[in-house]
């Protein structure tokens, strides 16, 4: 069998949700009924007016998850009106899974048990690829398709080619899943994984905690891939304890064990060892423009951001606190922090992480997407140079189009803001 046409976990999951017989040819169109549809406030107005045009009512409101994360709290009257309209739409349609102000949609999906191993979810957001952390197939769709999923319960997919990546070794101290994901983007670039189903294996993947996995899979979206999947590990099953009821969890585990045999037998397309990896930084203006931090050290920084679906998790806030403990951010720099969810924020509050960050002078904002998408609060000015844990650094993404954005791990961001220049965070992390 040709390598790219190997069945793999991705196609096995698609098969579970596809209508009719499937012939497994790459490029073939199949109709699927996903378990969940995720939508958020950035598209709610469009979806609402589209639903009105179609004249249908959502047939499966219990399949829909709605998060308000991109423009909350609102910064303009347009955003405020949009929010209020969106909240009443949700109420009128009777959607049971609505999470206003709980945090970033993908983090909330994980926390509330909507990322179930071997299930299929679709979303009006490219970073739904993050679902792969749980062995859940997450596919991005357009708002028009979201309306059709609400009304018909179905959408179309084309069968993708498979790319297998094996990551071996152990991440060195001070180097995180975020750095590893940036390395992967450097290696697969804009072409290798475009439109393809990525499957990730190896000891480094097996060892990754839930926070790291979610961040890693989120960043894989920047390769243009169809999806990214990891086999659930012990950390995932532990995380799901209490978030899925016990009987469901047991069934899901058993179902997943049966899928073990679907791993393709041939050697991986790419093998990477991460044992000597150093911190990585993506330079303007693309997330695949990745360099070792040593190549960019000394670059002046005016703002740092710790947040987004690729860097606002507890692990990220905690390591930033490690770097900043007992220190003070210099007056010429700003550090903005948006925890990925209310749950993350409560944990950071109780563990003392927030106290350390506040003492250091960080500006701590609400759970949500924050400045990443350029909607509100903390936008960059003309000539600003920001180092950020966000997902993308296209020109003009988070404010002024003359600002430059570098992407890095939370540790690198904290250290760089402290020093006023891009720097290796490891000297701040000595035990």
């Amino acid at each position: 069998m040709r390598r790219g046409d190997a069945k793999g976990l991705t196609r096995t999951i698609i098969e579970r949700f596809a209508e009719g017989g499937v012939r497994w040819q790459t490029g073939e169109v199949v109709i699927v009924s996903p378990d969940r549809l995720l939508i958020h406030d950035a598209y709610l107005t469009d979806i609402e007016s589209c639903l009105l045009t179609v004249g249908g009512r959502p047939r499966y409101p219990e399949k829909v998850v709605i998060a308000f994360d991109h423009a909350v709290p609102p910064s303009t009257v347009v955003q405020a009106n949009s929010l209020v309209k969106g909240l009443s739409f949700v109420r009128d349609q009777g959607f049971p899974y609505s999470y206003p102000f709980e945090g970033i949609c993908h983090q909330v999906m994980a926390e509330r048990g909507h990322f179930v191993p071997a299930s299929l979810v679709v979303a009006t957001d490219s970073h739904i690829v993050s679902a792969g952390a749980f062995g859940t197939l997450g596919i991005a769709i357009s708002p028009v398709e979201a309306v059709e999923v609400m009304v018909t319960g179905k959408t179309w997919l084309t069968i993708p080619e498979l790319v297998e990546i094996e990551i071996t070794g152990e991440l060195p101290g001070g180097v995180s899943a975020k750095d590893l994901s940036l390395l992967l983007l450097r290696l697969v670039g804009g072409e290798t994984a475009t439109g393809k189903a990525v499957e990730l294996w190896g000891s480094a993947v097996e060892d990754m905690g839930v926070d790291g996995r979610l961040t890693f899979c989120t960043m894989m979206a920047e390769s243009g891939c169809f999806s990214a999947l990891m086999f659930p590990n012990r950390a995932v099953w532990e995380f799901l304890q209490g978030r899925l009821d016990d009987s469901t969890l047991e069934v899901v585990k058993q179902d997943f064990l049966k899928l073990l045999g679907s791993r393709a037998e041939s050697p991986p397309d790419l093998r990477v060892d991460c044992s000597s990896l150093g911190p990585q930084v993506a330079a303007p203006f693309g997330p695949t423009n990745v360099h070792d931090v040593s190549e960019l050290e000394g670059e002046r920084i005016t703002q740092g951001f710790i947040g987004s679906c690729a860097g606002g998790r507890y692990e990220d806030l905690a390591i930033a606190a490690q770097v900043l403990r007992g220190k003070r951010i210099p007056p010429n720099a700003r550090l903005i922090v948006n925890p990925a969810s209310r749950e993350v924020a409560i944990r950071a509050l109780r563990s003392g992480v927030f106290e350390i960050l506040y003492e250091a002078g960080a500006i701590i904002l609400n759970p949500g997407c924050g400045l990443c998408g350029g909607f509100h609060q903390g936008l960059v000015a003309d000539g600003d140079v920001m180092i950020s844990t966000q997902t993308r650094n296209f020109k003009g993404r988070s404010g002024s189009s003359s600002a430059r954005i570098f992407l890095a791990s939370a540790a690198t961001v904290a250290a760089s803001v402290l020093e006023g220049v891009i720097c290796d965070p490891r000297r701040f992390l000595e035990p």
Partner: protein
Amino acid sequence: MIIEGRVWRFGDNITTDAIIPAHRKQEHRDMVAMARFLFEEMRPGLTSEISPGDLVVAGVNFGCGSSREAAAAILKAAGVGGILAKSFGRIFFRNAVNVGLAVLALDTDGIAEGARLRVDFRTGKVQVLGTGEERWGKPLPRFLLEVAEAGGLLTYLKVHGDYRLSG
């Protein structure tokens, strides 16, 4: 679906932000009103020069970056009849088909700005008018062609009532 029109030529890795910046999407709701901001940074004023049915021709990864649906919708609203590129951003590709914009993947090297093409999206045949040159692209699967031809997913489903895969 056969389209004949003038080529508006672009390079590689054209992002959805280049097609229409995020802030324009926030400022305006109406696609027709927004259409004049198409390629605002790269080729300002382009929309006023486009004749209905003209073709956008590009290199690799056309429509990469953010998943914003407005990028596909605005191309359609501006009168673009179809897009030819070496490859497409995955979500842009979905958005294009779903709003009724025909797309075709083929080697676009040598297809120049200002050339006139006749494109049969069903067969993938591309003729450069006035030269006798012929190229072949990889046509969309039948179902997706039907969605694009119907004018997009909403119209398709209104007409057919359900997703109909042939064969």
